[in-house]
């Protein structure tokens, strides 16, 4: 992966190249060895190229190869390895390069503006809707239904930003306190500045290989044993936002494939999508890693710390490392990979790990994408 930063000199193509090149180098492969390429990148409005997949193709190594772009908003980053998995699982390809890239910085005056274009043009845009509204509305609903306090939620931001201090590519690592979060500027109540991840430029990539090749190329491959994805209705105002149904369905799909019946016990650690701090809790529950309304308790008790029983976001998550939309999910998959191989350096979780999970989320509170990986 590249660094994740607010603005980078590199174009989207150049960032994709740096990440893809690094992935190939770490696998000892060349572009000619790659059978197919999958790329993910989020709304075209960020960098004004309305055929963004094709624009990034050369940087993703897709020149004259079977090439696919996938998109499910923020869920894209974990969806890219899933789509790459289809290529290998179907027998169509032996080696697939999966790249996630995002360049958010070009849109003026602020990248957030691009999100305005995902809302219903008749009934929502005329109200001056901003992306923050849907997060704030969901956060409020979650807090109300399960009686969760802003302090509970702030603990996630404190944990993840501290974890990010050990991530070499991180954009906003910091040592903050719950009070810092509570006192930070309200943007869209109850969302405050320190509850949110930044907008970023960045790219990340992984290489997938079929079983036979994987065993030839390394002594310690990491296997994808479960994939799941699910998208809910775009009529988001017709759903109760307190619980992500679509994520539970995606998780069950992945658990079934991986023969997991008790996720809380059988998943050793997880990289859970955290564009906002409350989302880590929301998603932990959707992933059945905690009962409804119980994720705050696990966080308070330190269970989700790196030395806890169920480490969550040892990388530092989006809150700490950064949020270049489609690249963020791939960063999480990379983190699970490094943790399982014992290569996460200072971020390595204390307990021995055999099975991890990476999850992303996106669109209008709609999509859950899940990947389960094992040694």
């Amino acid at each position, binding site marked *: 992966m590249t660094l994740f*930063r607010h*603005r*980078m*000199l*590199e174009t989207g193509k150049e*960032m994709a190249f740096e*990440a893809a090149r*690094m*992935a190939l180098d*770490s*696998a*000892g492969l060349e572009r000619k060895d790659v059978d197919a390429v999958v790329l993910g990148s989020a709304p075209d409005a960020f960098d*004004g190229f309305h055929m963004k997949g094709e624009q990034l193709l050369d940087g993703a190594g897709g020149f004259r190869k079977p090439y696919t772009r996938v998109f499910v908003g923020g869920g894209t980053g974990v969806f890219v390895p899933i789509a790459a*998995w289809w290529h290998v699982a179907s*027998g169509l390809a032996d080696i697939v390069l999966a790249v996630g890239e995002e360049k958010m910085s070009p849109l003026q*005056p602020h990248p957030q*503006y691009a*999100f305005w274009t995902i809302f219903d*043009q*008749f*009934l929502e845009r*005329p*109200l001056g*809707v*901003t992306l*923050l*509204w849907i997060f*704030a*509305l969901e956060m*409020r*609903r979650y807090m109300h239904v399960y009686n969760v306090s802003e302090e509970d939620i702030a603990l996630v931001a404190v944990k993840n930003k501290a974890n990010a201090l050990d991530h070499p*590519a991180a954009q906003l690592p910091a040592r903050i306190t719950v009070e810092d979060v509570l006192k930070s*500027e*309200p*943007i*869209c*109540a*109850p969302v405050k500045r320190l509850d949110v991840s930044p907008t970023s430029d*960045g790219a990340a990539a*992984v290489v*997938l*290989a*079929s*079983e036979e*090749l*994987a065993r030839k*190329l*390394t002594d*310690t*491959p*990491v*296997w994808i044993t479960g994939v799941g994805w699910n998208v809910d*209705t775009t*009529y988001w*105002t017709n759903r*109760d*936002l307190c619980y992500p149904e679509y994520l539970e369905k995606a998780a069950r799909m992945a658990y079934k494939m991986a023969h997991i019946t008790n996720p809380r016990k059988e998943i050793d650690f997880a990289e859970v999508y955290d564009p906002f701090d409350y989302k880590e809790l929301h998603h932990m529950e959707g992933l059945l890693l905690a009962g409804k309304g119980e994720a705050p308790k696990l966080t308070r008790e330190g269970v989700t710390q790196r030395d806890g029983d169920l480490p969550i976001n040892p990388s530092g998550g989006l809150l700490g490392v950064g949020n270049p939309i489609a690249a963020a999910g791939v960063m999480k*998959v990379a983190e699970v*990979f490094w943790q399982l191989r014992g290569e996460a350096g200072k971020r390595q979780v204390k307990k021995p790990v055999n099975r991890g999970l990476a999850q992303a989320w996106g669109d209008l509170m709609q999509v859950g994408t899940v*990947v389960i990986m094992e040694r």
Partner: protein
Amino acid sequence: MGRLDAGWHGCNNGEVKRLKFAGTPISPEEWRNESVFFKKEEFDLKYAWDTGYAIAKFLEGLKAGKILGVKCNRCERILVPPRMFCEKCFRKVDEWVTLRDTGTVNTFSVSYVNNDASRREKPLVVAVIEIHGASPGMGILHVLGEVEPSRVRVGMQVKAVWKPENERVGAITDIAYFKPIEVM
């Protein structure tokens, strides 16, 4: 088919390749002073969107001072915003229903920023309002007015405040905002 790989680290001679994180951050000064090369561009994309049958009728209803919904006889849900087909049963809906112009606040937020991240002069209270007459949980997005942000509660009962008839054009903004009604 066998198990599938998620990536690997190939160094059979035992030497670990250094992982290097590439990237050249642009400092705020370089951004402001443009001491590196930038290219600027502006587009103004203009659209004329067909509203479709369902939204067309919904907007006509708003112009007439009514909130309309539709009913799917198979799942028996009454849906708002109205749609031509029920997304669950995947069949055309059966009839139009006039709903009340009151509702219950399902969730709300107080926004201090505009959609381009600039600061608002006055905060805006936004909410998902479950419309009375529709199936439970059927909400629409709108704004609240005539209420102190700190007094808004989930579960609050609200009523639409309509623009005067001659100012209504067939838009969601024909409802200026929803205001709290007194609980009996």
